[in-house]
């Protein structure tokens, strides 16, 4: 993530804070006094006066009710000679607020501190700092300068007095320099988030520890932060937390992909808030900003930085055990990249502006870039054409969608042809590795390959993936579509050799398609829906058992299937959610993708099917 974005998200967050942290009926209202306090500690200053009591069983400090005399916080320097007094304001520094919001009075009071306590006996300098987390204008600054000029340079006879002003930019700058730690977050998150930071620094992305410890911890943190009635401050805190995490992952060799992983869980939690409170515009805007400026921008940066690496042949290969177990792991990593590139491509289509011709040109250029990255990845890393589980139909769809969007029909044909050949090698048993596992268990795939024996539960007799593949092929021009359809159906689905006889040990695969439950849009962001909805078995042969002959016949049957499904099963897209978010949710929660995602393009409504 580049520095500009970091500054922006920190600014968004700090600007959204109140002056004081306090408990309200709707929960804790986070204040930037906590940030100033922690900045003081980071500078090695000793707190002299705090606006809150640090004790508290619920880890939230309680506000003091004593008279402040303009002093919100005060610190003594390590040499005990300088007293720094902070006057905090969560208001814009301008003419109207100068008097109305007690800038003037509080600064005057603060500049006449009581230095009689024994702890302050050696003080020789007093510095009064006005800190405010909002904007300012010229009049406000003029008021401040006049006050400074009027107050002189001494407190009493021996102690010098000076003033300083920390505006939002300066606070953000100091936070970036000193406070990208869990201390920046509200106190109640400190210990939990510190633990997450430590885990992020230690655990490799995707490892068992990552999956079984860090991710549940992170999701619990997200659940605490982004509760259903969360306000904008909570949403704005999420990118700050992620920025802090990134700071802690420096030594982790998988920090980049791991960070994207955590961002994704965060984004899904944030979109869930938008979905549950559609009328809170501030939250919606904040999440959109985060989606585009944080997640999509990070994907863009990552693939921009690593496109050259991904186009090196076999660059994704994992070589750990010197066996096909590594081959499987490599395919998982490859599909991870395919999914992110695909989501980036879909997200470009949704977030790039559409108003002008220049916008259109930019959108097209972006889709071309994604297509190029994808094609280079596919060409250099054959593991991208090694789907292991049925859910890899999501990556199949994403690749297809991005290439189609860039109008790379020829490349789609080439890619799908090679994919079919590679799948054929596995289907026939020549490819050394098992065919696609239908119940989506990587555990079973690994067991099969590691032990050399097919587990009883391993399912390679039913497939949504192949149905998806057949339907995606239907979007191609008939001359390319028909031979591919025939090849996929005869070889991969029916398991027939070119001479028409069954390949040894190959029983036909049952084609399936999935219809999501009616309320899937409400739940897709939070859970897996793989065991919900309706699973339709597809019989391509007629009642006499005669299999379709030729690609166009197969296309006709699929077209009829789509028409029937649309007519008899309602399909409703969840409003307010970008498509890329829904796809990301399906990837993360391991839900199948509703077929209408690709059917909308492959079988456009209100138009004649291609080739008919």
């Amino acid at each position, binding site marked *: 993530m580049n520095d500009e974005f970091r500054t922006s998200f920190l600014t968004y967050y700090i600007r959204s804070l109140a002056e004081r942290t306090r408990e309200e009926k709707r929960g804790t209202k986070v204040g930037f006094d906590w940030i100033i306090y922690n900045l003081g500690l980071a500078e090695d200053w000793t707190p002299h006066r705090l606006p809150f009591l640090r004790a508290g069983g619920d880890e939230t400090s309680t506000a003091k009710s004593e008279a402040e005399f303009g002093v919100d916080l005060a610190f003594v320097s390590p040499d005990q000679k300088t007293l720094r007094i902070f006057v905090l304001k969560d208001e814009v520094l301008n003419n109207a607020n100068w008097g109305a919001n007690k800038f003037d009075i509080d600064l005057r009071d603060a500049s006449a501190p009581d230095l009689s306590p024994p702890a302050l006996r050696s003080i020789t300098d007093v510095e009064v700092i006005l800190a405010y987390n909002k904007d300012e204008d010229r009049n406000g600054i003029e008021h401040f300068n006049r006050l400074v000029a009027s107050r002189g340079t001494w407190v009493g006879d021996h102690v010098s007095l000076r003033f300083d002003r920390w505006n939002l930019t300066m606070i953000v700058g100091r936070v970036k320099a000193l406070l990208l730690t869990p201390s920046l977050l509200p106190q109640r998150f400190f210990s939990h988030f510190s633990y997450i930071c430590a885990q992020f620094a230690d655990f*490799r*992305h*995707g*490892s*068992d520890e*990552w*999956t079984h410890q860090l991710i549940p911890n992170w999701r619990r943190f997200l659940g605490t932060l982004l509760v259903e009635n969360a306000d904008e401050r909570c949403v704005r805190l999420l990118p700050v937390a992620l920025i802090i995490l990134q700071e802690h992952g420096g030594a982790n*060799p*998988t*920090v*980049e*992909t*791991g960070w994207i992983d955590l961002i994704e869980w965060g984004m899904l939690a944030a979109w869930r808030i938008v979905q549950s409170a559609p009328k809170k515009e501030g939250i919606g805007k904040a999440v959109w900003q985060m989606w585009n400026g944080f997640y999509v921008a990070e994907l863009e940066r990552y693939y921009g930085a*690593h496109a*050259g*690496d*991904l186009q*090196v*042949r*076999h*660059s*994704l*290969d*994992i*070589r*750990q*055990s*010197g*066996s*096909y*177990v*590594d*081959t*499987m*792991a*490599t395919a*998982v*990593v490859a599909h*991870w*990249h395919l999914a992110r590139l695909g989501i980036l491509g879909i997200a470009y289509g949704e977030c790039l502006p559409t108003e002008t011709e220049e916008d259109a040109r930019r959108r097209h250029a972006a889709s071309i870039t994604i297509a190029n990255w994808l094609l280079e990845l596919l060409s250099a890393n*054959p593991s991208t*054409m*090694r789907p292991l589980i049925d859910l890899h139909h999501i990556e199949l769809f994403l690749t297809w969608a991005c290439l189609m969007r860039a109008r790379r029909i020829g490349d789609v044909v080439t890619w799908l042809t090679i994919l079919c*050949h*590679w*799948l054929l*090698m*596995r289907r026939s048993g*020549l*490819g*050394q*590795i098992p065919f696609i596992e239908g119940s989506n268990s*990587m*555990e079973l795939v*690994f*067991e099969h*390959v*590691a*032990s*050399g024996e097919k587990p009883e539960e391993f399912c390679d007799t039913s497939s949504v993936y192949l149905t998806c593949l057949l339907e995606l092929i239907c979007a191609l021009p008939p001359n390319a579509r028909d031979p591919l359809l025939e090849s996929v159906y005869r070889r991969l689905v029916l398991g027939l050799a070119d001479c028409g006889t069954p390949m040894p040990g190959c029983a036909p695969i049952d084609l399936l398609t999935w219809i999501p439950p009616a309320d899937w849009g409400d739940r897709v962001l939070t859970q897996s829906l793989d065991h919900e909805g309706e699973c339709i078995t597809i019989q391509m042969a007629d009642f006499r058992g005669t299999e379709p002959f030729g690609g166009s016949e197969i296309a006709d049957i699929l077209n009829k299937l789509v028409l029937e499904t649309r007519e008899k099963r309602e399909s409703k897209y969840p409003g307010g959610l970008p498509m890329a978010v829904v796809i990301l949710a399906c990837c993360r929660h391991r839900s199948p993708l509703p077929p209408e995602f690709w059917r909308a393009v492959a079988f456009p409504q209100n138009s004649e099917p291609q080739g008919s």
Partner: protein
Amino acid sequence: MESVNAADILKHRGILKTEPGDGMPSDESAAEAFLLHVRDNNACETFVGELFSDGIRPDPAFFQRLWDLHRYYGATPSCSEGVGIVWSQAVRSLPEEDRQSLLGAFVGQGSPRVFQLLGSIWVVIRDHSFPASFLAEWITHMVRAVQRDSLQGGAWAAVRTLCVYHPDTAFDVLHLLSLRPDQTQLAIASFMLGVLRTCDTTGPRDESLRKVEAFFNDHLDGQFRGVVAWSWAATAQERALTEDELDALFARAEISPDDRSTVVCVVCRLLSISKEISAETARRYREWIGARVSPSLPSDAKNAVVRAAHALLLANGGDLVPTEVSGWLLAIQPVALDCIDTWQCVAGALSGILKKDLALFIQTFERLCGSGAATLQRLFHGPQLRWLLTEMGGESMDTLVGRLCVSRDTETRRLGLFLFDSLGMLSFPLDTLNSSGVASQLLFYESQRVALSPKAIARILVAISSSAEAAKNGFRSEVFDELKLQARNFAGECRGELAARGEAIPLVQTALAEVSTYFTDLDRAHQAGINGMEVTGHRRAALVYRRRLSRQVTKSAESNSVLLSMAKSIRLLYGRTTSQFVGGVLGPAAPLAETSVSMEMPILELSDPEEMAMRRVHATAAIERLLQPEQNNARGEGCP
């Protein structure tokens, strides 16, 4: 049984040297002195009384004390006979039922202890009469205990002694053995019949012999008829067969295919074992065998033919290889893979030919591949024929290997490539590649379908590259792609070998130049962390795989190593050195030695198994295309 010092007794009798440190004489003089001593009945009786002063009981200690005598006189025939006389004397002192128990206990020891006194048992059989019913059963047990061992001669010597010294009992035993179709018993019967035929069988014994012969001759079961045929092998060990006897034996081959097979075995055996065989008889044997060797012979007959061929080769001391040898080896093909013994004999014969006539070896081996290339290759992989490979490595095999590699037969090509690799040939014979228009391509595509070492791949590609420079129809481009692929696949040895041997070949150099930056790019990509993420379950799967691999390696090592299969495997728990406490003695400590073998893995088989499989499919199709015109032409020649 109390401890008895046999050495003291022998010394006391003056038949063992008394001075300490005197070694056992290397000649048989001491054993002969011992034999002479025990041949004296009185001396023997006294000696037995002293040796078994604590009594004679049919237990292992009795046999151990007899076996101990060999410590002083060695395992010589004289000693064996002397021990037999002592044993016989001991038996004499026992009541009848104990005598049988003692013999029963001897056989009951089982292998390998039964072999210790096997050379002496004939003396006991000679000196004592036992009931036929006991002997029939006892001999069967004895032969079963030793029949798969090369040291079984003592058992047959005992049977022969029975026939010679107790012919009437032998006929009774023969009768009892003929009651059941038991392979061992019928083998004993044929041996006894053969020996009895050579004994004095005048009078009623002649009648008995004829009856027995008629019984077996006319039997409906081929196994029983085989007894007569095999009996001639025993006879031939005693004396030369007459013309009539030979004619009768040959005539038996016409009875049925089973009889023919048996007679082939017998005649082959006669050729190998007969004493003082005349040149004319040997010629008859060879001609007769030569006329009957064919692929349809059963496996035991094929084995006999190969053994006979091998024996012919060994019997012929000069540089010439008997003309039949190669012909017989080829005529019986195919020989099944599981006929290991036959194949080992074939290898023995091939080795003999190789030493005498390289051209004939090449010719024979090449023709052998016509039906047995796949079998040969599998046997070469195992321990059985590895030694032949070593012997072949000492001769120039360029011509043979070159021809095999570009053969039209798939299995032959694969065997050729295997030999090229296993023999560590430094370069592929280029003249072979020019032998036909498709030779280079056949070699190229076949090499893609088989597992070869990185160096062998490089050497083959270097040979093909030099001829592919001028090739058209895209072959040059395919070779170029293959060069790059293999340079990545085996980035160590293959790339190094290509660089070393392909220095003067532009195609090789261009390919190497193209992949030179690949590994730097790959390192950079991996360091960037794009494949750094782990996959849940991967670590555990890798562990399961390593365990499986370890089990397979251990199993394979045990099945391929005689030493490992015999030795007990002990897992040491502590320490850096190891020693053994055996027989009451603690041996010196030896440091633990670590051995390891490393080999370069074909990385693309793991990175891209589907593409590699597709490449093999493509190679298969290409080979079919290459051979199709030739096959079509061959078919077309006969068409109108």
